[in-house]
């Protein structure tokens, strides 16, 4: 039932919104992994980011892709929680008051070990419009434990103008989305985090040229 609702939601709301109201120019489509597990890493300025990234994949694959999202925000009320789980298939993780039992890394690992893919925004929040904040190191733990899963770097531009944090009215702008080459990262937590941050901001620079 959830899958069915999600497919309807994407067909009738997300796709028309992204293709006609906004208009997303996609670059580096050939870098997208086909029919295999991945961890996608992107910058984050807007709720539209999640929709645009999920929309890159065939509808049949949506059930095995989980955007990692802040529990404190998305589980703040029952309606939002149900909506984001049904339509976006999110994996809620805590941002504060982390204990052993609710460890976010553990939750992400469980999903990955079940063979599913993740979309992660390592900035840890949407932040200021069209500005990239430093990456959090949590993602590096996950990559260290699963170096065999490819990392797909992506950069989104324009979404933060269309629907910035704290706004509920969407303004149409043409947006850009660029996908980088698959990465297999090794090293210390700091090395992995820095490498990711470098690759993603490099993609952003490429878009601006």
């Amino acid at each position, binding site marked *: 039932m959830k899958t069915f609702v999600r497919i309807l939601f994407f067909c009738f709301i997300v796709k028309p919104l992204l293709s006609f109201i906004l*208009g997303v*120019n996609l670059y580096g489509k050939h870098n997208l992994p086909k029919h295999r597990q991945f961890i996608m890493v992107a910058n984050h300025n807007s709720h539209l980011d999640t929709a645009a990234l999920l929309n890159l994949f065939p509808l049949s694959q949506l059930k095995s892709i989980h955007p990692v999202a802040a529990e404190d925000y998305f589980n703040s009320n029952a309606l939002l929680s149900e909506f984001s789980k049904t339509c976006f298939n999110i994996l809620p993780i805590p941002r504060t008051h982390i204990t052993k039992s609710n460890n976010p890394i553990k939750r992400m690992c469980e999903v990955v070990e079940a063979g599913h893919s993740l979309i992660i925004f390592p900035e840890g929040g949407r932040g200021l*419009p069209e500005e990239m904040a430093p990456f959090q190191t949590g993602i590096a733990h996950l990559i260290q434990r699963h170096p065999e899963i490819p990392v797909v770097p992506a950069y989104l531009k*324009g979404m933060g*103008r269309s629907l*910035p944090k704290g*706004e509920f*009215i969407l*303004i*149409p*702008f*043409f947006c850009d989305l660029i996908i980088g080459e698959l990465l297999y990262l090794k090293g210390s937590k700091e090395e992995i985090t820095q490498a990711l941050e470098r690759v993603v901001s490099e993609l952003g620079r490429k878009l601006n040229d």
Partner: protein
Amino acid sequence: MFNFVEWFHQAKPVIQMGTIVLGLLSFSTALVQCLQLLKPKSDFSELSKRIRSWWLMATLFFLSLIVHPDASIVLFAITSFLALKEYFTLIHTRIEDHRVLFWAFLSIPIQFWLVKIHWWAVFVIFIPVYMFLFIPIRLVMTGKTAGIVESIAKIQWGLMAFVFCISHIAYMLNLPTIPAIPGGGKALVLYLVFLTEINDVAQYIWGKLFGRTAIAPSVSPKKTLAGFIGGVLTTVILAVLLRFLSGFDLTLAIASGFLISLSGFIGDLVVSAIKRDMGVKDSGALIPGHGGMLDRIDSLTYSAPLFFHFVGYMFYPAPH
């Protein structure tokens, strides 16, 4: 009951012009294919992409004119929307402008609805007066004054160029059939749009063939004197040849040829200057081979209102 004779009479200018465009596009498609065969080493992919996009745009335009009177209004409203979106994407806007941009977009359905209900008196003042008065006060309500002058100017200019001016093409469809203009508004729109677009193409071709001296080097180095003169002459000659559509006499046809060609050139130049200021070559990536929507309709932002007023002054005493 469906009256074929009446339908045919209504659709006659569309069919006539459609046949000419079909011929031109078929000829260019064949020409590019032949050139590719003769010179296999040169790359014509950009040119053939450009022509393929022409096929699509022409098909949409002619179909909308034939299907239903409202279809063209919707088509031009969508054109306005895409152009305005492209313009707002291109320019820098402040975070405080967010809600104001929403109202700017909302003016599109209102303006084209005024076209549909033939309300000329409000059509001509809604954007130049009422949006002009409303946008600054809505910006003031955000409480942020830094950069407000730029925002007022930028938003209003976008609305004037890409909503107000472009909507004149749609309003022209409302002009009735009169003895002097047997094809009515439909024929005038075909005449205007075809001549404006062919003027762009002719300028490009003459410039490629004989262009040496740049006509506005600091704004658009690719525009040449030869391209400009060739474009004007081609458009004037075509305006004379196609005057069976509009029903103009020779003098009026020559005058409208000059008017469309010169104003189209100016529109192109103004948008080029804006793109140059924003540091981009193409305004977007919407139309393969052409660039963005602004690259395609820039000339119409000037030629549409001017040709409308010209025809109005000559044949349709106000109010329309």
